[in-house]
């Protein structure tokens, strides 16, 4: 397992795998497979894959810890960028095929339709993450600040779920499924944070309770 995860070539098949949803969409498009309302189909497919990639990206850290596979980190940037990529396609479908670049109409939408407002926010929050995804930017920002910035993806994930939940007419099963996954992934982080804090506290307390040494006596 480890040797596969650390192999240089492994990123190529993962990259290609991430392109499969787009490939399927194109294939369907060329073979009349998009149904009676193709633009709706494209909108839903690209939206679905955006939130899926956000969820996959968020599961890298827990998977590393829980499966004991630290090398999974190698794929996180790529997966996150694919979330952004499908988000771009989703957004482009909206501004082009739904609104036909009618800016006034779009501004009205972002103002008035809360599901669009929140979806748009989630997308916009991904932009700085995509921009600062390079090694150069990690260096420039410093590890801690970079990490803080990239926690914005938590907000994107929540925004994505809410966007979906507010969009459906009555059957909320799918948005709730994604909501459950995001909740679980965020809960993992909260739990990890709490336990880490408790550990640190325990260490500090233990240190404090240690008998005074000659030095600080």
């Amino acid at each position, binding site marked *: 397992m480890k040797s596969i995860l650390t192999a240089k070539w492994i990123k190529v098949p993962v990259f290609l795998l991430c392109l499969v949803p787009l490939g399927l969409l194109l294939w369907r498009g060329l073979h009349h497979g998009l*149904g*009676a*309302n193709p*633009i*709706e189909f494209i909108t839903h497919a690209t939206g679905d894959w955006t939130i899926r990639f956000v969820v996959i990206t968020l599961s890298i850290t827990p998977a590393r810890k829980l499966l004991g596979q630290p090398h999974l980190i190698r794929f996180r940037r790529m997966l996150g960028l694919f979330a952004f990529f499908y988000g771009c396609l989703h957004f482009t479908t909206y501004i082009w095929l*739904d609104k*036909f670049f009618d800016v006034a*109409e779009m501004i*009205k*939408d972002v103002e*008035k*339709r*809360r*599901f669009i407002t929140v979806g748009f926010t989630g997308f916009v929050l991904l932009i700085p993450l995509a921009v600062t995804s390079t090694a150069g930017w990690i260096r420039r920002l410093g590890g801690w600040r970079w990490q803080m910035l990239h926690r914005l993806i938590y907000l994107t994930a929540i925004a994505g779920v809410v966007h979906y939940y*507010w*969009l459906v*007419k*009555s*059957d*909320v*099963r799918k948005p709730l499924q994604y909501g459950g996954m995001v909740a679980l992934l965020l809960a993992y982080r909260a739990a990890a944070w709490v336990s880490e804090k408790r550990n640190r506290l325990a260490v500090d307390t233990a240190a404090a309770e240690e008998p005074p040494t000659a030095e600080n006596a």
Partner: protein
Amino acid sequence: MLIKKPASIPSSEITPQSVYLNRRKFLAGVSLAGAALATGRGLLEMVSPLTTVQAGAKLNAVLKSPFSTPEKQTPYNDVTHYNNFYEFGTSKEAPAERARNFKTSPWTLSIEGLVNKPRTYDLDAILKIAPLEERIYRHRCVEGWSIVVPWIGFPLNALLKQVEPLSKAKFVAFQSFYDPQQMPVARYAGIPFPYVEGLRMDEALHPLAILCVGMYGETLPNQDGAPIRLVVPWKYGFKSIKSVVKIRFVEQQPPTTWNLATPREYGFYSNVNPNVDHPRWSQAKERRLGEFFKRPTLMFNGYGDQVAQLYAGMDLRKNF
């Protein structure tokens, strides 16, 4: 009465619906043929249902209507594979699949409430209420898409004439068939069943409102509301209740399903209105299935000349 029986129909004439190969169609065809024979009105030619078993049963002797639009009709395959019929699932593709074995024969439609002649119709009797007409209507879904469908049916007011509503009756309440056994996924739909709808009496009497038994020259496919549905073309599609089993005449405005589910978003009237947005999306434009660009939505779905007077003096923003 002239009855022609062509020896056979070329298979090219049979619309692509191997999907609808089922016993119901055959039975419906037989009863329709029977009805046509019995009434004999406007009967010009009739194809033996035996030869059309593979398609939906052909409905013949259908009169043309001046209410029909000359617009391009939406392809049959789109109207039968892009459906909102939440009893059979909430995706657009689900009803075509899940309604395949929906049992629509025998069928009864009961007329109840404030009427002189309450009664129960079977499908044969329904088909004898009035001569069948083809009505090519625009159909606008509240979700922002639209289709043009050659419905087949008769004016709802023809039924009203037969059962004689009392003067106390101010509204007509409709109820869909509901059977959790046949519709196991309905419980995930997020809306209450059985599906109910309603019209004001003057709306129900309007000649544009029809009871529909077919489309594209044939009996209704299951997923489009077989064997009998309502079609009210100036209202959002969800008012055109499918697979009707009960019509009740009442004094008070009856409950309607989408209004029960989300009262803020769906009102009793639900007239197509580009100026009153759904709280979550604009109703100004619509996408006609098969078209790339959106088109502007018309007031009362383009039937304003006929129906606007029904709502004279009403605040349509309040009565959405």
